[in-house]
């Protein structure tokens, strides 16, 4: 199953290295629970494409703000998300 890894750009200027938030994208059902629950509001559905199941998948659009709290991963009913820090 193809996964999309959105790790921070190598050129990041921040002190800390941003966490990794990995989506097993084809499992995503676009339910938006992760999006709602994320305390920093950095997730959204990518409405420009559908995954193999026909859903717009969730993505992180501002990983640098990610606290690595894993709230998104915990709430995701389909175990789509892995978080590393």
């Amino acid at each position, binding site marked *: 199953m193809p996964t999309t890894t959105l790790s921070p750009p190598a050129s990041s200027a921040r002190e800390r290295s941003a966490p990794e938030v990995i989506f097993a994208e084809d499992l995503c059902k676009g339910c938006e629970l992760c*999006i709602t629950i994320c305390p920093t509001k950095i997730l959204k559905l990518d409405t420009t494409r559908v995954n193999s199941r026909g859903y717009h998948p969730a993505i992180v659009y501002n990983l640098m703000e990610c606290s690595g709290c894993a709230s998104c991963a915990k709430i995701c*009913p*389909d175990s789509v998300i892995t978080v590393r820090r």
Partner: protein
Amino acid sequence: MKTVYEKSPGLTDVPMHYCPGCTHGIIHKLVAESLAELGVLGRTVAVAPVGCAVFAYDYFNCDAQEAAHGRAPAVATGIKRVHPDNIVFTYQGDGDLASIGMAEIVHAAMRGENITVVFVNNAIYGMTGGQMAPTTLVGQPTTTSPLGRNRLGQGAPLRICEMLATIDATAYIARVSVHSIPRLNVAKRAIKKAFQLQVENKGFSLVEVLSTCPTNWGLSPVDSLRWVEQNMIPAYPLGVYKDIEGGT
């Protein structure tokens, strides 16, 4: 980098069939994580219900039996009495447990059967397309209570924890919710504790988890979480209703 969260080894690779945003999936995760963390996956037998969770046997990474509608506690009893060292749990919906399976759940509790029950209360029959459940809220419309559940003649929601807590031989009875991360963390602890007590042979444990049914509630998954908080929790107060260890 260390992994803060990843899919539990307590779950198989089979993608779940639940509707988008249905919290059945979250509850599965909490159960799977608990079993994995307690290190008992290899000796666990799950009992799947008839209801949306009917395929639970495909998802939990352990042995499993599929029970007839409502009879999971009886099936679990049969398993446990043959292999007392197995960790045996049922995963049941509110139609399954609180309607057709009422006698079985009460009597498993009465016997102090050393099993764990994960009770998923979404106030409706999900699987069959949204009929009224004993747990449906007063005024909540369903396909068989089109004008909303009427207290007169259809009664008020059955509160299983309150009822079962009156039974002597129960070890642990709690009601939790997964509509927010703090609540989800509490839910996880409750479920894990319920299994821990089984490992310690303390007897019957049940965790009721308030859950959503976006599809049959006619709400988005996100609005459904809000509905749990605003409508279900007032009718179903969260908390520990019985703890043989006296804690909360």
